[in-house]
């Protein structure tokens, strides 16, 4: 009975979005064909529900507590939010409440950037949150690095302002495309205040022998809802190297679909997460080894305190013929409290025999032996505990080779501890 009620509430929320679409349709930029098709699918099948296998651990019910509206006129100033952006000496593209803000941005040189509407081609049609994004998306950045160009570092910032009772929903649609042999480090930061829903989609194309380093910092408001769906296609010899830090949002889901579509392509999908209070964080990834001789590597570390809930779903698919695949996946979670909960579902789906695939998962508390060892050397209990938790996360963060990016991640980590102490 309660399941039925939940579904009804979700249906009502889906209906509200559809109604918004009907009202906004004429004002939304670009072609309406894809939007209409997405609306049709949403109308038929609604938002992701708890009975769907891919959503068994993450329930969207909390979003039904709010009515989300599209943001009104832009807030002229958001100094508090800007101040929180990591100090990285690089050009930046700033979006506030889902809309591009040229006044706050410093566009890069050597990179083609187009804004003013949803960017890039259609990806992952039929994924419900992507459909929602397609239907209502207003803006986004299309970032193109030409063949052979080393474009350095670019910051892509999403800021969300607190509008009290008027809860904003925005659906940015970004696209990043690296030409053959091109290089880019994209530092992708999302932060905000208050209650809002940020439902972003990012489509990435890494051409032959190109290299994208993608550092993602999800520092959203602790009351916000954050859904980020990422699609990456990596061509022959290309590399997509990503690290995702998740600290914010009441309810978040970070879903990555990475296709290794050319031989010798490489994908790293690493992540660290620290969640507390009532936070719920979901990291879901589907890595498809389509071509032979590709490599994927994934280490996801999760620290859960209070009544936080962590979800990890990681699937590695090896297509028939994708021989010599090397797939490695490790997810580890530390539970710091009796009310915390971790749900993991690592998954292998393999259709080729000459492959090396493995996954590992551990869930547990801080190692008592290690704790005792530190204390026997004179380190106080709380300090020892903190040291071990830091060490646990550091293993993941130390792998980031971009120094400024790693420093920014560490600063966030420190801030998290600071908040903990307070």
């Amino acid at each position, binding site marked *: 009975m309660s399941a039925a009620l939940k579904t009804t509430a979700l249906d009502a929320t889906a209906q509200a979005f559809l109604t918004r679409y009907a009202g906004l349709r004429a004002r939304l930029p670009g072609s309406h064909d894809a939007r209409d098709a997405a609306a049709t699918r949403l109308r038929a099948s609604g938002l992701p529900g708890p009975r769907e296998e891919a959503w068994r651990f993450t329930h969207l019910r909390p979003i039904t507590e709010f009515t989300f509206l599209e943001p009104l006129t832009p807030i002229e100033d958001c100094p508090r939010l800007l101040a929180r952006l990591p100090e990285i000496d690089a050009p930046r593209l700033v979006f506030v409440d889902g809309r591009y803000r040229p006044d706050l941005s410093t566009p890069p040189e050597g990179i083609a950037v187009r804004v003013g509407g949803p960017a890039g081609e259609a990806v992952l049609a039929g994924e419900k949150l992507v459909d929602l994004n397609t239907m209502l998306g207003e803006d986004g950045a299309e970032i193109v690095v030409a063949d052979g160009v080393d474009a350095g570092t670019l910051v892509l910032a999403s800021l969300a302002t607190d509008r009290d009772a008027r809860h904003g929903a925005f659906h940015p649609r970004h696209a990043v495309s690296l030409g053959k042999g091109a290089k880019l480090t994209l530092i992708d930061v999302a932060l905000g205040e208050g209650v809002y829903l940020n439902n972003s989609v990012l489509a990435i194309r890494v051409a032959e022998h190109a290299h994208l380093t993608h550092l993602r910092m999800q520092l959203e408001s602790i009351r916000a809802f954050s859904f980020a769906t990422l699609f990456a296609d990596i061509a022959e010899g290309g590399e997509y190297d990503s690290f995702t830090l998740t600290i914010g949002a009441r309810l978040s889901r970070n879903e990555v679909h990475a296709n290794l579509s050319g031989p010798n392509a490489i994908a790293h999908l690493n992540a660290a997460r620290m969640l507390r209070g009532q936070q719920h964080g979901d990291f879901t990834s589907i890595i498809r080894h389509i071509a032979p001789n590709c490599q994927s590597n994934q280490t996801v570390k999760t620290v859960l305190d209070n009544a936080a809930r962590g979800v990890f779903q990681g699937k590695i698919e090896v297509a028939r013929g994708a021989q010599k695949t090397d797939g490695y996946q490790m997810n580890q979670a530390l539970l710091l409290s*009796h009310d915390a909960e971790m749900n993991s579902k*690592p998954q*292998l789906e393999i259709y080729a025999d*000459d492959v090396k*695939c*493995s*996954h590992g998962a551990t869930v547990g508390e801080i190692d008592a032996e290690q704790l005792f060892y530190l204390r026997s050397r004179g380190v106080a209990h709380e300090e020892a505990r903190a040291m071990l938790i830091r060490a646990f996360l550091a293993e993941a963060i130390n792998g980031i080779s971009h120094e400024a990016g790693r420093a920014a991640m560490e600063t966030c980590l420190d801030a998290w501890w600071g908040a903990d102490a307070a």
Partner: protein
Amino acid sequence: MSETVDSMEAVTAVTEGGYKWGFSTDIDMDMAPVGLNEDIIRLISSKKNEPDWLLEWRLKSYAAWLTMEEPDWAMVHHEKIDYQALHYYAAPKKKTGPKSLDEVDPELLKTYAKLGIPLKEQAYLAGVEPAEGERPQVAVDAVFDSVSVATTFRDTLAKSGVIFCPISEAVHDHPELVRKYLGSVVPASDNYFAALNSAVFTDGSFVFIPKGVRCPMELSTYFRINARNTGQFERTLIVVEDGGYVSYLEGCTAPQRDENQLHAAVVELVAMEDATIKYSTVQNWYPGDADGKGGIYNFVTKRGACRGARSKISWTQVETGSAVTWKYPSCILQGDGAVGEFYSVAVTTNHQQADTGTKMIHIGRNTSSTIISKGISAGRSNNTYRGLVRVLAKAEGARNFTQCDSLLIGDQCGAHTVPYIESRNPTAKLEHEATTSKISDDQLFYCRSRGLSQEDAVGMIVNGFCRDVLKELPMEFAVEAQKLLAISLEGSVG
């Protein structure tokens, strides 16, 4: 192959695609009409002369089944099963109950021989008493299609208070026990196939080990599907009271038939304080031919409840047969310090599909579980490990270790791993590892350079891969299992 080899045997080996148990036995059968409805259930119940409460239970289960849908989450694909096209009761005709083996159709006894029932069991089944001083090691219950046809050593067992009999008899002789425990681990409405089984089960084994008794011998059941167009729905219930111990073995074969046959069994285990149940299965139902025609649909619900403190349930399975396997022997670890184990080897070749694994539900404090799963895929088969480890909030100090390894033979098969790991207790420590590999050319050459044939080398490497599981089987079963593995994989490399 030398020319002196029995040509009949050679022909059989070829035509049966390696399945050596594909004979059928010509026995006079008593069959229920085809189809499923309340009347059929009443007929089964009356054939068994069952008490009203059991008929009521069956009818309730049937009503529940009617409201349910066949599960579709497993990674298996098969033709839709027409549940109205099956016989739900088939029994060898006999005048009265099997009081003595003399009353058993001689064809049936021949069947045992063909089944390759190993060891001394055949003699025991045939009623030969062991020589003085020779301790019987295994007591056997043989279930032929839907009914138990012979149970050995009941008297010997009874002396130590052990009850080992067909469940249809236990319903009459020990109604209080059956009524108390039947459906207490796998409720009638648990899942689609369990509901179906609860409605139409015809026989199976019942074991009761009283307080403090260590069962003096291994207990064993051989299941055999023989009749055409029948489903087999056996029901096994094993209850071990405080401090008791039993080791139970289960073997299964079926004739080679072009049509698919349904097997939907339910096994319930109850272990009280300090009790231990070791349940071993060698499943060799007919897997279908090389093109995927025929074979058993094996949809089985097996679950054990570790109700008492320090109780232990250990499942060991070697799954080589069946066209489709859907099976997750599980442990509900309720008692503090309870232990659950799952050791599994699943081999799929040709077009076989297996989706098998376990569930370990940690409820009590300091409960621990171990899962070792070895999946071997060859041909065009698909082999999936699906498992759940769930630690509930009160399971302080729970432990799980899971190791899932897949071995792929050839590039047309699939190997999949789908573990669910859910923890709600910080003091719980869960570890999961999974790997995928193939038999390396170097390993094959190394063995061959020492004189082993290609097939023996494959058999040896595969057995090595499965060692951690096979060593959990009782010795004589382990030998059978090793041979079975090698036979199952014949011709899959090279």
